[in-house]
């Protein structure tokens, strides 16, 4: 019995975990309890050192002193303040008017605003709710297909998951032991491409099913010129001029900059130009710009300013992601104050939600660390690695299997659970197969985004359901009785976008260059040539537990992993600090080796 137990302890542990999680008790506590239970079993079986559990407080300490996690409350708080600042409403109204006259225009506006909101807030619920309340009624009023309308809103809302600064990417970076800045830079282009794919789908619909996405009728275009013309020419001229300015700036001043940096800075320069033009036009009453051109310019400034403040400074290396988050949160506060949209009640609510979300996130992480302490102790990582490396097809086979696995799990688990439980297990295997971890992280990020769209549990669908009309209602403007949006329509509307997501996963696998641009910034320094001494660990008390017992030769695997660890020492001192505090990948391999060889 005990021999069988010893031989199968890792799979047993994993099965116990799955069962316990499914019971429905909070994930954080179940994870930790399973870890501790099996640690005691392992110690009783002489498989683990009795001192193993002494390392527990150290795990908690490692989570506490982890700077990266500070991004979580910062970006959450920023998103919560922003969602109340009225920015989303302004954007949706104006951009809807701008694109509305096009066939499918309202859908494009939703995608465009969804991407802009994603690049500032990173909160799916806020985007979906705003768009569901503001754009959906307009789309329904003018005869959009209900499935298309709800699908495009839910999907655009989930862009917040993949376009930086998103929480998924922070946690992914933390779990894979990479820098958040690199993860952001890597996810930037895939995020934009994904939004482009959504746009392509809408374009396809307008060609094959034009009645699904009609243009706004004349009477609904409220931002027209006094003389009745649309004023679009003026927008075109301004956009063309701004684009020319930004391209010229990029050509002359940013020749050697990496792509993400170029995009961010040149966009800012172009916007600043448009803004100055609009201000000059307004104050001097030149009348050179149409109403819509002026409005669109002003409404684009706050989100673009925030994007620059947060992503721009991170990409330029001026600020760390943590600092960028804090600056963004402060910027959002200032903006909300300036617009007089913030009250004490609102502020308290934002702080309350932020505190709750950060707490449960950190507790899942603590639980996962406790679990992994035992799981690595019983060589569970070797078991997982064996399972995954024995797959046919090498790298590609591994990527395909892992993506299918995550895609299926995403029906049941949300991204916190996926990234804290699954990523630490498969990350080291990916690393061993020579897969770039940033690429891997972005790939899984795109995949996990589907967890928000999967019927019937997807959160985006759930939020949309809560704000979409569930009963027949009288449209206030047209006085027409309008049909509700059924839950079935919301579910069916999501399916094409889930398929697009799968296409995108394929694209990221096929064209890793989209992600690899993150490396462009650091070509000047070769990380492998830099030697940095790890700072001595502060947590000296647990040191004995992490070293191999004296007199016992290191296993080959441990040596390999130690070598890897040395190779991985980054140029970034902060990164090495993080390593020292133990992202699971780097610390776990040094966990105690089995005290006795398992009896056969």
């Amino acid at each position, binding site marked *: 019995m005990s021999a069988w137990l010893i031989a199968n302890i890792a799979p047993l542990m994993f099965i116990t975990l799955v069962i316990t999680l499914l019971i429905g008790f*909070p994930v954080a506590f179940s994870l930790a309890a399973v*870890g*501790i239970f099996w640690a005691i079993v392992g110690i009783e079986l002489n498989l683990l050192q009795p001192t193993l559990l002494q390392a527990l407080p150290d795990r908690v300490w490692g989570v506490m002193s982890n700077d990266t996690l500070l991004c979580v409350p910062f970006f959450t708080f920023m998103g919560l303040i922003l969602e109340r600042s009225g920015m989303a409403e302004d954007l949706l109204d104006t951009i809807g008017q701008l694109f509305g006259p096009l066939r499918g225009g309202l859908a494009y506006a939703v995608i465009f605003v969804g991407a802009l909101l994603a690049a500032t807030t990173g909160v799916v619920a806020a985007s979906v709710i705003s768009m569901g309340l503001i754009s959906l009624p307009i789309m329904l009023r003018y005869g959009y297909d209900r499935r298309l309308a709800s699908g495009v809103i839910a999907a655009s809302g989930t862009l917040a998951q993949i376009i930086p600064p998103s929480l998924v990417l922070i946690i992914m970076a933390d779990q894979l032991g990479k820098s958040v800045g690199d993860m952001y830079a890597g996810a930037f282009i895939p995020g934009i491409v994904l939004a482009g794919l959504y746009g392509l789908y809408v374009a396809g619909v307008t060609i094959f099913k034009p009645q699904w996405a009609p243009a706004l009728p004349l009477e609904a275009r409220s931002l027209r010129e006094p003389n009745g013309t649309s004023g679009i020419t003026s927008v075109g001229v301004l956009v063309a001029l701004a684009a020319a300015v930004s391209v010229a700036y990029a050509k002359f001043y940013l020749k050697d900059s990496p792509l993400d940096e170029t995009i961010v800075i040149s966009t800012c320069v172009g916007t600043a130009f448009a803004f100055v033009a609009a201000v000059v036009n307004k104050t001097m009453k030149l009348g050179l710009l149409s109403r819509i051109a002026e409005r669109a310019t002003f409404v684009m400034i706050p989100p673009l300013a925030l994007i620059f403040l947060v992503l721009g400074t991170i990409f330029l290396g001026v600020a760390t992601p943590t600092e960028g988050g804090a600056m963004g949160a402060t910027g959002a506060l200032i903006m909300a104050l300036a617009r007089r949209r913030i009250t004490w009640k609102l502020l308290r609510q934002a702080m309350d939600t932020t*505190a709750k979300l950060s707490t449960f996130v950190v507790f899942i992480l603590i639980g996962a660390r406790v679990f992994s302490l035992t799981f690595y102790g019983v060589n569970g990582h070797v078991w997982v690695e064996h399972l995954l490396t024995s797959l046919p097809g090498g790298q590609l086979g591994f990527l395909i299997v892992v993506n299918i696995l995550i895609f299926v799990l995403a029906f049941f688990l949300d991204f916190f659970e996926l990234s804290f439980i699954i990523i630490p297990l498969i990350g080291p295997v990916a690393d061993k197969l020579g897969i770039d971890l940033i690429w891997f992280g972005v790939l899984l990020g795109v995949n996990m985004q589907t967890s928000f769209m999967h019927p019937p549990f997807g959160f985006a669908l759930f939020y949309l359901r809560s704000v979409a009309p569930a009963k027949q209602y009288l449209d206030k403007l047209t006085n027409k009785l309008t049909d509700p949006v059924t839950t079935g329509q919301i579910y069916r509307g999501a399916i094409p976008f889930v398929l697009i997501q799968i296409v995108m996963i394929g694209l990221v696998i096929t064209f890793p260059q989209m992600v690899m641009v993150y490396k462009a910034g650091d070509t000047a320094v070769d990380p492998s040539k830099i030697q940095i001494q790890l700072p001595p660990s502060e947590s000296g008390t647990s040191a004995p537990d992490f070293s191999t017992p004296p007199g016992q030769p290191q296993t080959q695997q441990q040596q390999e992993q130690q070598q890897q660890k040395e190779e991985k020492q980054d140029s970034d001192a902060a990164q090495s600090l993080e390593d020292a505090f133990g992202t699971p990948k780097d610390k776990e391999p040094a966990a105690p080796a089995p005290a006795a060889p398992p009896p056969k």
Partner: protein
Amino acid sequence: MNALLSLSRAIDGMSERIGRLVYWLVLAVVLISAANASVRKAFNYSSNAFLEIQWYLFSVIFLLGAGYVLLHNAHVRIDIIAGRLSARAQNWIDVFGIIFFLFPMALVIMKLSWPLFMDSFTRNEVSTNAGGLIIWPARLLVPIGFLLLIVQGVSELIKRIAFLKGLIPNPLDKAHGKTAEEELAEEIALQRARDEQGSRT
């Protein structure tokens, strides 16, 4: 049981007060971090104490807030199965989970983290970073945080059992007021209505 229920109410009151105090630190840590970043850029001056205070405060938020989050039932669950069960079954799951998962894990971590604090306290341990802060208050947060979690767990256990005995309404669907999402939706709808009225008059 009545005495236990008043104990539970007292614990809930304490956790609620602690939570409401602790969440102000979110604003504090945001402002400190932003100020620190600006000063670092503008005057090229940075202090390790300011960097450390940020994660100190964040640790206070999640460790002292753990009980508060438990009180509000905001720790994430996987409810694909539990969500379909009866209220009684859900409460039984919590009784089981609190006794066999929550208590053991919190007790073990609390007990094991205490010596670390004592050691740090007697040595008057200071951060190894230049100009860093003293460490022992942060070390003390761990046992205190898990103690608060256990205490709140006791209160939750009392409430679950009281429900199963038919003494109180289901604590799991206790209306915690509106969710943030519901309030956001209401506010946008209100704003819309105001705008529409404005445009009509």
